[in-house]
């Protein structure tokens, strides 16, 4: 092979250098996808972060028989998976950039996690401003607290009498709640229009006996019964903890 053969081949086959715009388009596409993936990762992280803020970590014993089971049932797997997926995509695309390969795995991993975290926190602040997302998570919390057969009820106090209160739950049903047995520290929580959570026993249709009443840290403005949000109920069973408290309180009085 000599030089002339190669030059001749280029000429006879009319070969031309691939246009600069083709390479430029490829570079721009990679950076565009990289940006989209980073924003998506941040979005997923923001969702995961906000959802985590609304998990009832302090009251896990009312929902599950162990903390681990509670965690397993509450971790927002979809958002965690999407976050990890976007991180992998960012990692892959960054390696495909012109000089991305020069950086180590640890560096790229750390930077992409840092950017997604920071942007995620900023986005979550924006989401807090947009009540839709918060309302959704608060509703989920309310739904979890509204399972009378499992010993949990929540909602807005409509009316207070000596021995009972009227309570409107998230499904817009009104409950007659017997409060004659509640623990003494529950009394202060009961106020008109307060949004509360109740531990107790389901008696019969729309009748409930309370053992313990706690405030539910949910913004009253966003308590909208019968809202359109569809939520999943994770915890259907009464825990031993609820049963023990109620047996102790009701039998004790």
């Amino acid at each position, binding site marked *: 092979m000599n030089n002339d053969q190669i030059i001749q081949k280029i000429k006879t086959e009319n*070969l*031309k250098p*691939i246009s600069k715009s083709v390479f430029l388009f490829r570079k721009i596409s990679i950076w565009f996808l990289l940006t989209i993936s980073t924003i998506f990762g941040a979005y997923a992280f923001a969702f995961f972060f906000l959802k985590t803020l609304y998990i009832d970590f302090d009251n896990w014993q009312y929902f599950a028989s162990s903390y681990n089971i509670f965690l397993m049932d509450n971790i927002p797997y979809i958002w965690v998976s999407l976050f990890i997926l976007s991180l992998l995509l960012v990692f892959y695309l960054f390696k495909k950039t*012109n000089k991305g*390969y*020069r950086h*180590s795995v640890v560096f790229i991993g750390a930077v992409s996690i840092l950017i997604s975290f920071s942007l995620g926190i900023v986005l979550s602040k924006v989401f807090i401003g947009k009540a839709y997302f918060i309302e959704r998570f608060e509703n989920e919390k309310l739904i979890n607290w509204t399972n009378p057969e499992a010993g949990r009820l929540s909602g807005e106090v409509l009316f207070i009498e000596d021995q009972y209160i009227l309570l409107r739950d998230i499904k817009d049903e009104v409950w007659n709640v017997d409060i004659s047995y509640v623990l003494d520290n529950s009394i202060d929580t009961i106020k008109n229009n307060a949004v509360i959570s109740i531990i107790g026993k389901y008696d019969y249709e729309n009748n409930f006996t309370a053992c313990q009443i706690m405030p539910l840290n949910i913004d009253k403005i966003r308590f909208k019964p019968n809202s359109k949000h569809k939520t999943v109920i994770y915890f259907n069973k009464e825990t031993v903890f609820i049963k023990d408290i109620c047996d102790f309180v009701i039998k004790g009085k």
Partner: protein
Amino acid sequence: MQEIKDKTDNDLAILVRQNPEALSYIIDRYRTKLEKYINRRTNVDRHDLEDILQDVFIKVYRNINDYDQSLVFSSWIYRITHNHIIDWYRKNKKHISISLDDDESKIIHILQDDNSVIDDQTLHDQENIDLIKKEIKNLPYDYQEILILKFFEDKSYEEISDILKISTSSVGVKINRAKKLLKEKILK
């Protein structure tokens, strides 16, 4: 001719963009180096070697607009060659085979700083050189290619990083692992 000799690779790349004939200057400059490199990486006969080399230079011409001047031109042309060799293996479904016969003195450099394997005096024995050669051929392919680039092509970590598109730290790790594995195989 003196003028062309004085031109940098970058200057030649700019010339090729304007006129395909200028490619012959790049061919002159890199033909011997790439011939040796391709032979080391493929161990093919003369005919196949020429074909591969011709395809590499045509790829250089076709992709000249992708050449980033912040990179060393030599690394860029080696990267094209490296990628073409991988494509060639894939396309021809040939068994990976390397050739280390052209410059046996370079083999010694791989283990020269490690006296625990073979001491300095006996390292130069033909028998030992043949043993090292044989064991390099038994290494995984990515270890073979990195040893070839480092010890036969005399490339720096930065250049290998640009050719193989991996970080310099990965280059260091791979070279050390390759040397360690080679040492284990020799000591077996």
